[in-house]
């Protein structure tokens, strides 16, 4: 337990400022305490620091103005993406065989569906990464509280709010037409696709990219003036684009005839559709920049 305890203590100390992490781990090492004791001491300090942060008004404003709306939109979108893609996944995994592989229709269908599946996952991951960047930029002074807040919101939104929203939509508007992903009964009855798969999508395509988005925001905040301004503009435009695209989640509640007339205008409001994929270009550009300039010496932490 000692080594594991120390490893966990060092990991938990990552939630502290670099200097404090250094000093505290050094104090514990000097005191000769065991791993379990070190872990409990670090957790106590992290808890106190988090409590201190949440005694301020800033994290609360950030929570309700940015984190909660982002978490809700991402969680609903994640459930929809998982629902639609589970149909294809089930179709390919559960019916794959030599007969199918020799079927030309299968390859035609595969060629048309794979870009859709990959595209929807990529889009969800890019949305999540952008939301993380937005949270990171909006919360420079409270960034340590952003991680747990975002993860808790994502979990609650995914487990409670999104299913409730989708169930209401399905019950009121879509159940008669049987066009909701959840209405794909043969697939949604399979435990894996019903329970585990949506959580996997939420974790891999939403939680991980958004946490990385927050982490990358710290690096982006240190960029030189024009580059930083460009990143801020991209975050703002991509967030606006996500907002416009996600409006369809809320407009589903208004009568179909009105929505039918509004959607073309919404589409027209979104000429920069490709902007949602900006994280791919940004990460490639940063990688290229590091390659050209050489590795940056990491600060001791």
């Amino acid at each position, binding site marked *: 337990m000692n080594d594991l305890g120390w490893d966990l203590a060092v990991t938990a100390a990552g939630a502290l400022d670099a*200097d*404090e992490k*250094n*000093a*505290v*781990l*050094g*104090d*514990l*090492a*000097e*005191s000769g305490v065991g791993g379990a004791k070190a872990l409990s*001491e*670090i957790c*106590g*300090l992290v*808890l*106190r*620091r988090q409590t*201190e942060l949440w005694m301020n008004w800033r994290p609360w404003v950030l929570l309700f103005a940015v984190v909660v709306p982002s978490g809700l939109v991402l969680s609903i979108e994640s459930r929809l993406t998982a629902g639609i893609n589970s149909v294809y996944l089930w179709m390919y995994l559960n019916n794959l065989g030599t007969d199918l592989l020799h079927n030309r229709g299968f390859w035609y269908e595969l060629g048309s569906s794979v870009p859709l599946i990959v595209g929807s996952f990529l889009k969800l991951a890019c949305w999540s990464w952008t939301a993380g960047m937005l949270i990171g930029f909006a919360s420079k002074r409270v960034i340590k509280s952003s991680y747990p807040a975002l993860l808790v919101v994502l979990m609650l939104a995914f487990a409670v709010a999104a299913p409730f929203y989708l169930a209401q939509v399905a019950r009121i508007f879509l159940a008669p037409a049987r066009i909701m992903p959840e209405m794909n009964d043969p697939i949604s009855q399979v435990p894996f696709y019903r329970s585990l798969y949506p959580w996997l999508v939420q974790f891999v395509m939403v939680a991980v990219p958004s946490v990385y988005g927050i982490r990358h925001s710290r690096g982006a905040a240190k960029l030189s003036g024009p580059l930083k301004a460009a990143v801020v503009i991209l975050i703002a435009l991509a967030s606006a684009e996500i907002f416009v695209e996600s409006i369809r989640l809320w407009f589903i509640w208004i009568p179909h005839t009105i929505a039918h007339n509004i959607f073309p205008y919404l589409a027209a409001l979104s000429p920069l559709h490709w902007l949602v994929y900006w994280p791919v270009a940004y990460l490639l550009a940063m990688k290229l920049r590091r390659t050209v300039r050489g590795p940056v010496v990491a600060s001791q932490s």
Partner: protein
Amino acid sequence: MLLDIYLYNNHNVALMIGEFEYLILTAASRLGEDAYGAAIRAEIESATAERCSIGALYTTLDRLEKKGMIKTRMGDPTPERGGRAKRMVRVTAAGVNAASAFYEAMMKVSRGVSWQEKTRARS
């Protein structure tokens, strides 16, 4: 119990310290140039015979620094600390005034009270 009292230093600026802050100021003052997290913690544990948590120590150090009663800086890394640096602590004039005023207040309020007699009378 955390006893908070309002004190006034020579510049008539309101300062507030609690008993734990007083313990840290006193320990840091006694240690002088060698005052840092682990040493202060050991001093407090030795004086009070009670456990002093890292969380309580570091959050209180921050609070004292914000009040201008101490100044901290990162020292050099040492091998016995696994190559990690110390957070060195120096008590400022405001810290000395606040601790001194706390001590005076404790002495004044304790005048004429004998806890040893009361303990004996109860037992």
